[in-house]
């Protein structure tokens, strides 16, 4: 396999509604930013693209991907669409990685978008719920917030995690978003405000949940030769991992924990895993990515993480899946301050999905762009402020997650 680099990225502002643009217009906006950031890049260098969007329903359009590829002027170069619920962006990024690593392409554009404002919020929730089993899950009152609520109620029961710990995640992510000009929901919040906001599905309140967005993101990946030719500040992709779990939450097994290299069997001897409290696919994706990137202790070896925080509870679960702390100690991890700027491994400095927004197909690529800028040290250039730029970041991880942890990707990016 060949080495793969990210050489440029772009994101649109994420907003509740962007009626002034079609989906291809949004992709163009993100692409223009990525393109203008890399003056040596020419259209003829681009070998093809991969499209990331979740739902045909939101767009009321089949083959929406080619329309964006076409609008970018990339026809007749090859393109394909990737789909895996919330993990669509992460899967798309890895698909572009594979195109370069295999030698099929030297420069590949990964683009993602979603225009969720085209339908009412609760209809949008219905489309998302259609990504649960339509025979066995959906007819009972299909609602993703409900599924995640059941997961965290069990997490609270097993490990003593509290709604106040979850609220701290929302405070951090909405707070980080204040420094990100692309973010949809910058807010200064208190635990009390979060607990007192409308209950959506116990214990998740409205402020524990990310919101729906219109937006697009673009990541341009290249081979070593083309990265050297086109970029003075490329970022290397040193680890990729991905895994799956059963479509239905009800089918999750009660087995043993897949151990990371800094864990031992004894710590988890009484724990049934994953049950519904943990995401096995997140753990297995991280395990593969760590092995490839030679990461022994994620807390020490990663400078930061951008993870899929569709809910505050899922951020806590993911700390554990990724091994930033032991399984069951996610609540303590947010309490410790290590997830905050200045902590041992800050999480979602961009604001994550909770703070920056969740335009489903764009989200995993948005994470890649923010991680890329963080590793490049160009947060000031792109955010117009330096507030959350880590000093000398070495290595970052992006985590993209779909369904109830049904598709998960983990990708390690590193300053060469």
């Amino acid at each position, binding site marked *: 396999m060949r080495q793969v680099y990210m050489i440029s990225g772009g994101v649109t502002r994420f907003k509740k509604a962007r009626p002034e643009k079609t989906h291809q217009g949004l992709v163009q906006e993100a692409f223009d930013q990525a393109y203008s950031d890399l003056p040596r890049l020419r259209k003829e260098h681009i070998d093809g693209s991969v499209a990331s969007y979740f739902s045909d329903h939101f767009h009321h359009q089949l083959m929406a991907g080619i329309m964006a590829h076409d609008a970018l002027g990339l026809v007749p170069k090859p393109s394909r669409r990737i789909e895996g619920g919330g993990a669509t962006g992460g899967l798309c990024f890895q698909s572009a990685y594979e195109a370069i690593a295999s030698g099929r392409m030297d420069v590949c554009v990964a683009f993602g978008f979603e225009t969720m404002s085209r339908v009412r919020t609760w209809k949008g929730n219905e489309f998302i719920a259609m990504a649960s089993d339509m025979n066995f899950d959906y007819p*009972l009152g299909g609602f993703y917030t409900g599924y995640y609520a059941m*997961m965290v109620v069990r997490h609270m029961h097993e490990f003593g995690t509290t709604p106040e710990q979850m609220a701290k995640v929302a405070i951090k992510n909405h707070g980080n978003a204040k420094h990100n000009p692309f973010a949809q929901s910058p807010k200064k919040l208190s635990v009390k405000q979060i607990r007192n906001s409308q209950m959506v599905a116990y214990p998740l309140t409205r402020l524990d949940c990310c919101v729906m967005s219109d937006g697009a993101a673009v990541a341009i990946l290249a081979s070593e030769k083309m990265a050297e030719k086109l970029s003075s500040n490329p970022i290397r992709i040193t680890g990729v991992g991905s895994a799956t779990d059963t479509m239905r939450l009800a089918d999750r097994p009660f087995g043993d924990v897949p151990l990371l290299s800094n864990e031992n069997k004894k710590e988890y001897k009484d724990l049934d895993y994953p049950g519904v409290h943990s995401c096995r696919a997140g753990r297995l994706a991280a395990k593969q990515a760590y092995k490839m990137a030679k990461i022994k202790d994620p807390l020490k070896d990663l400078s930061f993480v951008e993870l899929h925080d569709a809910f505050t509870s899922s951020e806590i679960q993911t700390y554990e899946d990724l091994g930033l702390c032991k399984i069951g100690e996610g609540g303590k991890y947010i309490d410790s301050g290590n997830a905050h700027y200045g902590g041992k491994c800050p999480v979602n400095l961009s604001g994550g999905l909770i703070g920056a927004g969740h335009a489903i197909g764009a989200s995993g690529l948005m994470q890649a762009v923010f991680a890329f800028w963080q590793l490049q040290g160009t947060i000031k250039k792109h955010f117009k402020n330096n507030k959350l730029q880590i000093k000398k970041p070495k290595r970052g991880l992006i985590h993209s997650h779909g369904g109830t942890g049904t598709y998960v990707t983990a990708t390690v990016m590193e300053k060469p």
Partner: protein
Amino acid sequence: MKKILTREFNYSIDYQVSYGELSPFFEGLTKKKLMGTRCAACKKSYATPRLNCMECGKPCKWIELPQEGKVHTWTTCHYGSEEFLKQTPYHLVLVEFPGVSTLFQSQLKKVKEGTITIGMNIKAEFKKRPLLKASDVYFVPA
């Protein structure tokens, strides 16, 4: 900037979705039976039917499940997808059955939010007029 135009329209579809090989489960609901499956080879059993074993891949046989179990986890939905907004608040549960390897998702009825607990005993009830949907069965406190 020029004026942005939008167009509003409705879109509806009639489907005829087949339950195919899963049909015995839905037929069971019409007879007040909960049908799961069990792997003939490794004996793992599935509260939500799977026709091939998740562990060993061998074919599974249909079995009748017990109708009493325990709450493994729960939530109360105060909002929902558009189709279910009018039912709110409703309670979702994952049910554990004794001796069955996996869980079963359902609604819990005839109970108040503050009184639902993990481990609580619950039993199946069936709709009088089944609609051939997973919601033809629901659970109530035992």
